[in-house]
């Protein structure tokens, strides 16, 4: 009799475990719940790939899309077309600006990667990977949305699409006072 209760208990626990495991989606490109959300974005300053200086605070008053990328990263290649489309859409209204950050790549490869896809936005080199650590980046591509006030409102992990960016932009604009 006792054996049946033990057996039942074992099966119930196993069923619970299976239920949890079965409902876990395989890791995919999604929004990341990062501690940076709602906080001031870390400073991004340095020289761009084409020479010239850049600081993120210069983009105050506009939405900034900070995109960590590398030329050898296949999802980054995948999302380039969408990023170019997004930049083109917003070139008139000037309400959103793109910034790239190079992740573990040589400047020449990154430069040719950007130019071959038609990207015209500035890209900052990140020697030593300190910017990546500051933003909590694990692996490219990761994209951050920074509000006109300089607050991080979204952290997207994986290749983004233009419609995703527009969606998060709209959500962020609504939430602003």
């Amino acid at each position, binding site marked *: 009799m006792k054996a049946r209760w033990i057996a039942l208990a074992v099966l119930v626990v196993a069923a619970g475990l299976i239920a949890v495991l079965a409902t876990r989606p395989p890791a995919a490109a999604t929004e990341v*719940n*990062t*501690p*940076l959300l709602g906080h001031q974005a*870390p400073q991004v300053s340095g020289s761009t790939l084409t020479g010239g200086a850049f600081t993120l605070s210069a983009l105050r008053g506009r939405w900034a899309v900070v995109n960590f990328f590398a030329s050898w990263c296949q999802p980054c290649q995948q999302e380039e077309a969408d990023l170019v489309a997004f930049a083109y859409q917003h070139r008139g209204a000037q309400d959103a600006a793109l910034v790239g950050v190079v*992740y*573990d790549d040589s400047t020449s490869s990154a430069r040719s990667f950007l130019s071959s896809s038609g990207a015209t936005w500035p890209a900052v080199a990140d020697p*030593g*990977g*300190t910017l*990546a*650590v*500051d*933003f*909590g*980046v*694990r*692996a490219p591509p990761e994209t951050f949305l920074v509000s006109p006030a300089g607050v991080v409102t979204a952290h997207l992990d994986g290749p983004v699409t233009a419609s995703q960016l527009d969606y998060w932009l709209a959500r962020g604009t609504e939430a602003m006072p």
Partner: protein
Amino acid sequence: MTASRWRLWAPWLAMVVVLSVALAVGASRPGPPLSPTQRAAAIDAQLRCPSCEDVSVADSSAPTAVAVRAIVLQRVRAGERQAQIEDFLVSRYGPGILLRPPTRGATSTVWIVPVVVVVLALGGLGVFFWRRRRRAAAPVGIEDRSLVDHALAERAAGAQS
């Protein structure tokens, strides 16, 4: 104690003494003070390489790991303590950057549950044996006893031949 018992237990007694002394010496003498690189390496072993799974920053040569190592070393040299450095990294990556789940809060369950389970299991074992001991040993009948004596006698005879 009889002489034979003394001969049996004296070596054990001596062994326990020697072992205790050795362990006491081994546990007590403090090591030399650690250099900043060694302290940084110790902290690195507790941090997860951000772009890997379950590999520590100390073990991995991924670019994020190299970057984190540099930052940790810089902060150790600046005098920060392990808790401060970990807090900084947690503020960027979330609590998942630590390889050791925090002992406070909801994650304390992962620390407590195994201990509870092992204690219960050993306790159960103890109860099991305690119950068994309370049951009296079966009495040995005369027939069984003579059978055993006969077999032992035969064996003694066989061993001598």
